[in-house]
């Protein structure tokens, strides 16, 4: 039995939702509304004390961290592995997972929040919002939400996020010049992870990701977008009331 606690099919939630769908694994969808702070309710914190989605519960075992969930699924369901078995291929899959988490995760979240969610949140009752943020029981999450719902992010953080996205786009584009998928000839969990974090970039940063600046990446996004499993997951979008959503999720590295 698989239960997946997730938010909208975007970013880290989408990674695992698409991963499960591509493998043909049925799961019970447990929607956690991050903008209603459901990730900080006691029931959810009992599953993940860090207050983040996605969380997979597989036969009672709680599995967290989106990239590690994809690696777990590759090993727990080897018939639909979607990952290389040779040592170097597996290393590359893990190294890409880390690269995506480190560079795209926090950066897309910062810019997406700033451009798309911050204005939406300004329409909410600010007193209620402040109360909700003040009740967040995890120190660094509360600090993150205070910044996000207050002044939003400083110029320097946004510029740094943009720089990291540009580097990642360049790396994806260069890789796709050599092979059709990020790990070579086969579609894999690396494509799924990178897609989940970059599929909104043509709308979010159209000057960085467009048919001229990143033709291979645009084609790769379209190919993944057209896959039946991906269509099925993206059709689950919209419960939060917006098409593209972002959460103040993953942190930027504090040191090096």
């Amino acid at each position, binding site marked *: 039995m698989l239960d997946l606690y997730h938010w909208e099919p975007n970013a880290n939630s989408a990674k695992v939702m698409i991963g499960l769908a591509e493998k043909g694994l049925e799961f019970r969808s447990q929607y956690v509304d991050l903008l209603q702070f459901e990730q900080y309710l006691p029931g959810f914190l009992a599953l993940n004390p860090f207050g983040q989605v996605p969380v997979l519960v597989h036969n009672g075992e709680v*599995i967290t*961290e989106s990239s*590690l969930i994809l690696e777990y699924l590759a090993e727990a369901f080897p018939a639909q592995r979607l990952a290389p078995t040779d*040592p170097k291929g597996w*290393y590359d899959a*893990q190294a890409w997972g880390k690269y995506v988490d480190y560079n795209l995760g926090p950066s897309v979240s910062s810019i997406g929040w700033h451009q798309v969610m911050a204005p939406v949140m300004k329409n909410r009752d600010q007193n209620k919002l402040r109360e909700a943020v003040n009740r967040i029981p995890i120190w660094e999450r509360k600090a993150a939400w205070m910044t996000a719902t207050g002044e939003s992010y400083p110029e320097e953080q946004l510029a740094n996020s943009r720089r990291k996205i540009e580097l990642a786009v360049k790396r994806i584009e260069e890789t796709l010049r050599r092979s059709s998928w990020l790990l070579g000839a086969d579609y894999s969990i690396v494509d799924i992870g990178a897609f989940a974090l970059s599929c909104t970039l043509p709308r979010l940063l159209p000057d960085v990701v467009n048919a001229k600046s990143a033709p291979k990446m645009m084609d790769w996004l379209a190919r993944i977008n057209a896959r039946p499993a991906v269509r099925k997951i993206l059709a689950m979008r919209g419960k939060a009331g917006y098409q593209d959503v972002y959460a103040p999720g993953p942190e930027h590295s*504090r*040191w090096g």
Partner: protein
Amino acid sequence: MLELYHWEPNANSGKPIMALKEKGVEFVSRYTDMLNFDQHKPEYLKINAAGTIPTVVHDGVVLTESSQMGEYVDATFAGPPLRPDNPVERWRMRWWTKFFDTFFGPSLSMIGWNIFVGPMVRQKDPEELRQAIERIPLKERREAWSTAIYNRFTVEQLAESRRRVEYGIRVFEDGIKARPYVAGPTFSLGDINVFCMAYALPVMQPENVNEEKTPGIMAWLRRLYARPAILESFKLGRTPMAQRAIEVANKLAV
């Protein structure tokens, strides 16, 4: 042939050293002196363009991510298994590795650079240092070095790092007191990856890591220090950092 470019047998360099020693794989050690900026020299950048340590070079395969090197070693060579068979235990091995890499490690490292790396390199010629910084390929590393060399750590930054280290210690104590090793009943790469960052805690953070407050961590450290391959690894050290490991071993009376 497997060549390993590494600095001291701790933090990121320690991970592949200990994995190779535990697996019983012969390797050529290429000591790369981080305090002499060897990792930014043109010869090294030809091998690893990011200018970070460690790097594994094995029959033309180049690996630059320390936490994943062990999985490659375990899957490639014969020797005792360093990963559990059970997928949940494997996930747990990786979860703790990631927790230490992203949450605990950077904060502990910042404190270490403030008290150790910064003061050591500041004695060098300022012009030489300026040029050394310019040669660093990664922006993140350039900023870290500038902060350390010009002592630009802020009080808030260091306080937040101390808070995270203390919190991380409590999280790890809760995890490790439930089972003998990081992943579960057996020793794995997770123990190596965590140990490389936690091996000196009883002497660096005696007020937070001790018999009363963290009996689980102390017992786990004893299990790790009792392993011949781990002790063997510390012999590759050339600075007082490796000496610290001996101090801890004595303190734990291993």
